[in-house]
């Protein structure tokens, strides 16, 4: 299986201070990758570098065989990458429904389309709050909205950066179930999350970052099973 997303020696940083020191990652089409690591190790930066939100300083990125170098973030996203960003980043001056519609995109051929109804079906709470402004809903509701918003772009690769942060246990469980289902529909995933055991149920692959490098990559199940690995890289 060829990789949908491939990173080779990716380097990036903030204003001259390097954060990524050569990241190599592969996400095969239809696969789910768990990206793990302690706080501040560069997970989010990797995600942003993929989309060009922080300009990479070196290395290569390809998505579906298309080199991403030189492409503007919106072009990259249009290739089929959906982002649930860290910290939600809901648009406060748009209502819940407008948040969902504003950046929605048409599905690719053969894809089962995400629509308002489908998102509301997934998160009935959002339907109840559809006329509320983005900053007038609770933290957890914002998180649901961020997920819904990314789905509405009908992506091929969905990146979830701490997407279950602040969600109640019931909803969280629901999200994991949905992710499994989406994967079943052929969507590829990169999931950053602290719930390691849940991650392992959705993702077959795991990669661990430390100080801006991928220091371990392999099957997720094995990673979780091996208490030594988990404690070495995550300190748990």
């Amino acid at each position, binding site marked *: 299986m060829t990789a949908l997303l491939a990173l080779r020696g990716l380097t990036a940083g903030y204003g001259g201070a390097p954060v990524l020191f050569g990241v190599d990652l592969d996400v095969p089409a239809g696969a789910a990758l768990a990206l793990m690591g302690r706080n501040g190790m560069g997970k989010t930066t990797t995600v942003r570098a993929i989309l060009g*939100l922080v300009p990479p300083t070196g290395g290569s990125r390809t998505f579906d065989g298309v080199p991403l170098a030189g492409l503007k*973030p*919106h072009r990259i996203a249009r290739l089929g990458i*959906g982002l649930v960003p860290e910290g939600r*980043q809901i*648009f406060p001056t748009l209502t819940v429904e*407008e948040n969902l519609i*504003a950046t929605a995109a048409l599905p690719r051929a053969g894809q089962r389309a995400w629509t308002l109804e489908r998102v509301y079906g997934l998160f009935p709470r959002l339907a109840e709050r559809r006329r509320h402004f983005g900053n007038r809903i609770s933290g957890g509701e914002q998180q649901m909205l961020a997920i819904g918003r990314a789905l509405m*772009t009908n992506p091929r690769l969905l990146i979830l950066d701490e997407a279950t942060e602040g969600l109640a246990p019931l909803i969280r469980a629901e999200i994991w179930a949905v992710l499994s289902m989406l994967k079943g529909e052929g969507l590829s995933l990169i999931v950053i999350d602290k719930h390691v055991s849940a991650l392992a149920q959705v993702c077959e692959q795991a990669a661990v970052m430390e100080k801006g490098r991928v220091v371990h990559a392999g099957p997720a199940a094995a990673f979780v099973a091996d208490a030594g690995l988990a404690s070495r890289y995550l300190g748990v």
Partner: protein
Amino acid sequence: MTLTLLLVQILNGLQLGILLFLVAAGLTLVFGVMDVINLAHGVQYMLGAYLMVTATALTGSFWLGLPLALAAALALGLVLERLVIRPLYGRDHLEQVLATFGIILFVNEAVKMTWGSAPLAIPMPEALSGSVRIMDGLNYPVYRLVLIGAGLLVAGLLYVLVTRTRTGMLLRAGATNAPMVSALGVDIAGLFARIFAFGAMLAAFAGAMAGPILSVEPGMGDGLLILAFVVIVIGGIGSIRGAFVAALMVGLIDTLGRSFLTDILKLVMSASAASAAGPALASMSVYLLMALVLFFRPRGLFPAPA
């Protein structure tokens, strides 16, 4: 003070308000929605008038000149966006102020060098040069009625654009978090460019439309710019509805203040004191209104949800 006079003055106030709204509309759009303080809006208004002068002279017709002038303003808006405004998105408001102030200096001078410093005129279109008698001895030009219509049209158009269309949603989203919008696959930079140019065109439209009743002269946009800011601040930045209401309020307060304040003051103080204080107070009335509104509603009448 007769009832007719009062009614006529109210009409005048509303009409001044609409004129102000025409100028303020593009400003709210660019400032409120894109979060760019564009001081150059005033000179874009002026440019609209001057382009109209040339366009009407070239074509010999108001109706042919107008689209020509607007197209030119749109093009200039695109150029300005590309050269100066684009690097300023997301930058500090004050840096935007400084850069667009530089544009004011440049354009004012360039206009003077191109068209001279003497006031110029845009002839009133023949079809609209009639008038209706609204009180004994006073005619109301049809053109002003058209101006009111144009203002209402622009107000409606903008309101729909911002609140009802996806473009409006994206603009509002981009104003608070442009990187996120592009991360979700939308070319927000391109959209901003088009909207900025559209705002420039709106300003030019106001200038072109005001030309037949006002004098076209260098610096004509500067004082109006400040008034336009007063309007959008009273209304609440980013709110088209707010700008509209505030423009009418400012127009009314200003007009009624000018018309009646001195007479009213004469009821409570000596005539000479009243005629000294009246006009000064009338000049201040707009600012008093703004200070009062902001005192009770620190984010204007229709604050954006934030």
